[in-house]
């Protein structure tokens, strides 16, 4: 069942400099119980999308359906969604307890019920020892827990999260991510989670959506999105470093780069989709290249040692590519390295539309 559904949603903001249109026909549907991560560059309307779903913003065009019902005219308080803000938005003048109890008090629930629920949620998030503190006395991680507790206590089955981990320390973030996943598994709530952090997106998502240019560029299983991006933009956005892309032509069963000495066999999956002489944009992930073996060779122009791996920039007869070498590579600038790209890891895109040839447009 499509639990959250957006149909051709447009939103334009007026600003002093003119107007911006972060959403230009977003079509998007989320099944019940999914943890959907919406990934996209900063300032491209991810938060706008959440605010439209929550009802805080009214879309200019299109429709929003929650639990199968049209909610365009339903105010946020009646949509029964919860939201965790990037800033957490826990009221500084209330104690943690009062913050968590606030949504329930607005529903005029009996006192004992409120107390029981607050304590239950607080225990779940392990903040039962700080219930009587004010938000000002809490650490970033604790505040985040309070914000999530507040979202859970309402019992809303749709939770929207706007970069809730952006303000956490790197070490805390890893644990917070794991806990969120566990929480999602336990509660089975539908969560829409917005971030610009790819690592977060790939590690959290049960479904990954990529938002760019006001539309959903790709949507699906995160591994699938990563390995077979729907279009060349998604390929160039995901991954760190992102996919290598180059213009090529199909010649005698090989994908041959137009510029540079680069030649890879046509992958089996694409064999029926391409014809001799066809122009394509080819791409492969830097980590799929095997450095130190194979027929291809390039001159090293730059070496970035990141720690766990090394990014080697090579020049292959005028075509510059990024290759990944696990751990610290014994390679320095000016060396010539050999490498190969397994043909099964190659993705081919239409040069005009940018779409992956494997997927339907």
């Amino acid at each position: 069942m499509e639990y959250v559904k957006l149909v051709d949603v447009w939103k334009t903001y007026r600003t002093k400099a003119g107007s911006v249109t972060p959403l230009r026909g977003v079509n998007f549907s989320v099944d019940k119980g999914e943890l959907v991560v919406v990934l996209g560059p900063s300032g491209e309307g991810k938060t706008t999308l959440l605010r439209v779903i929550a009802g805080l913003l009214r879309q200019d065009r299109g429709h929003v359906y929650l639990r199968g019902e049209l909610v365009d005219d339903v105010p946020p308080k009646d949509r029964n969604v919860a939201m965790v803000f990037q800033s957490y938005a826990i009221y500084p003048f209330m104690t943690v307890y009062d913050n968590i109890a606030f949504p329930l008090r607005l529903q005029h629930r009996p006192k004992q019920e409120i107390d029981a629920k607050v304590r239950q949620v607080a225990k779940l998030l392990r903040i039962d020892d700080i219930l009587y503190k004010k938000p000002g006395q809490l650490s970033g991680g604790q505040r985040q827990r309070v914000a999530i507790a507040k979202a859970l206590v309402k019992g809303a089955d749709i939770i929207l999260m706007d970069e809730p981990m952006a303000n956490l320390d790197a070490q805390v973030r890893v644990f917070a991510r794991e806990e969120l996943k566990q929480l999602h598994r336990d509660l089975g709530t539908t969560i829409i989670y917005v971030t610009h952090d790819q690592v977060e997106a790939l590690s959290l998502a049960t479904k990954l959506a990529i938002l760019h240019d006001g539309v959903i560029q790709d949507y699906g299983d995160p591994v699938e999105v990563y390995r077979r991006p729907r279009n060349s933009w998604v390929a160039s956005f995901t991954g760190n470093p992102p996919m290598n892309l180059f213009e090529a032509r199909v010649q005698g069963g090989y994908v041959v780069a137009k510029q540079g000495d680069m030649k890879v066999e046509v992958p089996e999956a694409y064999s029926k989709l391409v014809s001799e002489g066809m122009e394509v944009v080819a791409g492969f992930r830097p980590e799929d290249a095997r450095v130190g073996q194979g027929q291809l060779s390039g001159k090293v122009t730059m070496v970035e040692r990141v720690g766990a791996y090394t990014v080697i920039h090579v020049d292959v007869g005028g075509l510059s590519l990024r290759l990944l070498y696990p751990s610290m590579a014994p390679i320095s600038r000016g060396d010539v390295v050999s490498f190969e790209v397994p043909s099964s890891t190659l993705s081919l895109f239409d040069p005009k539309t940018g779409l992956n040839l494997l997927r339907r447009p």
Partner: protein
Amino acid sequence: MPSRRAKRVALKALRLAISYIVLIVMAAWSVLPLYYVIMTSFSNVGTLVSLTISALIPKHITLEAYEKLLTGRFIPSIKVPNFPLWVLHSIELAAATALFSVALAMLAGYALSRLDMPAKKSLATFVYIITFLPVTATTVPLYLLFARFHLLNYAGLVLAYTPGTAVFAAFLAKLSIDAIPPDYEEAAMIDGLSRFGAFLRIVFRMALPVVALTALLGFLGAYMDYATAYAFIGSNSNAWTAMLGLWYLAGLYNYASAPAYNIFAAGAVLMGIPLMALFLVSQRMMTRAYSSLAGIK
């Protein structure tokens, strides 16, 4: 070297002496009039205490002036003790003005801060510039205008007082609401409040220092006003405010009556009490209001 150290000590003593002299003079300058008023209020004669040094230390203290003030019927047509009635009127007017000022200022400030409307910036600037004009300058035009609408009464007075505070306070409220992240209201709306509910329960609470400041300014403005009250209700001693009554008692209102400065002084002291109380209650808020508006947290 001892001589140099002695010089340094002497210089330090001199610096301290000068600062203390300046401070003591300034303190005396501001405390002395208050002391003088209080001493006069404890006197049993209606004339001003003559200003010799010896007269500053009272020879006998009586509460006669207070008694007269609290029980006296200076205007025979009023059947209850006059002054308490007038103070009550003042407090009612001032409280109503404070209430309306807060409501108007917060609504206007919220609109100026949050809502998307044309010419917002020029409007905010205009609002700010209006506050440069003295309120007293509007008394005569307001009198002429309100006379036509039969508003020369308390309702009219509150209507006339409110903008005097609210216009300036709206600007303060805008600045204060600007500093509150909109996330809090949006969170409140998702928690189950309407936009107006979020405004009342969250924005008001978070802008409380400015709300308190507005209320205090509104209260003060109405409580201390003489000119507008005189123009609007001066002819009806039954409806007088404490300020009008005091001027009457001091003989400045009606030159035919004998001046009774001790009663006037007692009235001034009594009128100061609610203000002092208000100020003490909201002192912490006031400090927060000023520092938050100055951008110091």
